[in-house]
């Protein structure tokens, strides 16, 4: 793995050339069947969810997807889910539990969508329910931070049995820009902020916040290694009795 500065990781995590959540889903699974809507009021396009086969084993995938161009970014509000997005994710995760399917959560978001409508529809409540209910799921649950992992909006889907990060990804309590603007009232000090936030996969692995760093895959690259790795992880988690699985997941977080 190349040694990069924290700021280079920030740039890498946000790069346009990065493999997208949708590409990962289609590279990892076959027969992917997308499911839409939160069954309450809307379908949030920042959140993709559905069922697919991972090495012939059905899994549920929920992922946060950024847009490729301006129009798509507006449609997906830059990969920042609304409460409806989080409720859709939770609905699909509960459905996975019903059918005994493992869950793969793919995260690439600057954070939950900060707008007035999301506040009215209970952004805080939606994230809170993803966290509390997600951690009680009786099926194996793996979270991967693919690009940006911004704050509570990322944590909502990052409560898995295993939390992995791509090489060029970041996970932080707030954006380096936000940190710089609060700490020094100067959003230009992004590089220093990135260092202080300790948001790189290397530093989070050291802190025990994540379990492993995953090799960075380019768009179009063969994903069979990652597919086999995830299948093996799911198989291992699947061997545990349910109460042990949940206890282990919760103990991981109890130690923080």
């Amino acid at each position, binding site marked *: 793995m190349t040694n990069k500065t924290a700021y280079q990781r920030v740039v890498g995590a946000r790069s346009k050339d990065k493999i997208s959540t949708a590409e990962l889903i289609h590279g990892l699974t076959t027969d992917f069947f997308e499911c839409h809507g939160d069954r309450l009021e809307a379908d949030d396009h920042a959140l993709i969810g559905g069922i697919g086969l991972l090495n012939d084993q059905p899994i549920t995938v929920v992922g946060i997807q950024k847009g490729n161009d301006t129009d798509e970014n507006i449609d997906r509000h830059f990969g920042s889910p609304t409460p409806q997005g989080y409720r859709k994710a939770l609905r699909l995760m509960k459905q996975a539990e019903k059918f005994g399917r493992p869950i793969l959560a793919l995260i690439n978001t600057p954070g939950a969508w*900060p707008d007035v409508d999301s*506040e009215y*529809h*209970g952004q805080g409540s939606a994230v809170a329910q993803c966290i509390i209910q997600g951690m009680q799921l009786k099926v194996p649950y793996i979270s991967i931070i693919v690009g940006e992992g911004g*704050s*509570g909006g990322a944590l*909502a889907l990052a409560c898995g049995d295993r939390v992995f990060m791509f090489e060029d990804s970041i996970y932080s309590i707030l954006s380096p820009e936000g940190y710089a603007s609060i700490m020094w009232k100067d959003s230009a000090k992004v590089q220093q902020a990135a260092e202080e936030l300790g948001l790189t996969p290397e530093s989070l692995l050291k802190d025990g916040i994540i379990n492993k760093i995953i090799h960075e895959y380019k768009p179009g690259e063969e994903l069979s290694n990652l597919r086999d790795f995830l299948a093996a992880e799911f198989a291992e988690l699947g061997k545990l009795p349910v109460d042990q699985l949940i206890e282990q997941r919760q103990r991981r977080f109890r130690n923080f």
Partner: protein
Amino acid sequence: MLQSRFKMPSHDELVKRMDAIPDHVLKECPHCHYKFLSVRAGRNNICPKCGYGFRLMAKRRVKITFDKFTEMDQTVTVPERYTDPKYRAKIAKAKKITGLNESVLTGTAMLGKQQLAVGVMDPFWIMGSLGSATGEKITRLFEMATRKRLPVVMFTASGGARMQEGLNSLMQMAKISNAVAAHSQAGLLYVVVLCDPTTGGVTASFAMQGDIILAEPYALVGFAGRRVIEQTIMQKPPKDFQSAEVVMQHGFIDQIVARAEMKQTLAKILRLHTKENAYDK
């Protein structure tokens, strides 16, 4: 007609006199902007005009709300691994002002005949932010309550996760949520009282996980802050869009309770959750 010996002072003179009044004598309500003599806020520290509850230190809140409070985990505080001098200075100041070692005060108390577990966040302790020791205290509170089969009443007041502690602070949201879930699965009651302000990571976790969610009048309750919304997506939120009244209208709060009624209301809720009701007699 009686001639008043009172002569109206000039405008300049009035301004001069106003400036001479020490700050703590007058108070201004941040909600309705009514200005009044501080003493009129009374024991409950509320605006005499609109009923807004001023921010309270945790110790004062406990005193006006509960009986026989026994504190737990009093010495739990910010871990020494956080060495940044600026952060350390903030911690020292917060401890001095509030008399607490962390941003939450936890313990057991009585309300009427009912024993309960109590958590009160202190908005004067680095904005009531959720640090790792805050999370540890709240988690232990729920664990204790689950063991002793006690209901939990939690007063939230927080700016959200504590920036200075990075992702460890964010992880507290998950850690506390698990303790809440275990308490809930044991069939026990959890009541939240949203106080001014409840925002960010606290709203996105245990503040929104109660069986019953109350709020104080005009408390600010939200996830993303006004400035974040304005600066990130250039949208100008309406005034009061995150007031408890608006949040209640959207379905996230059971009742808004004035501070003077809080004690009786909580006692009533606890009473309604005891199994010994009329049918057992």
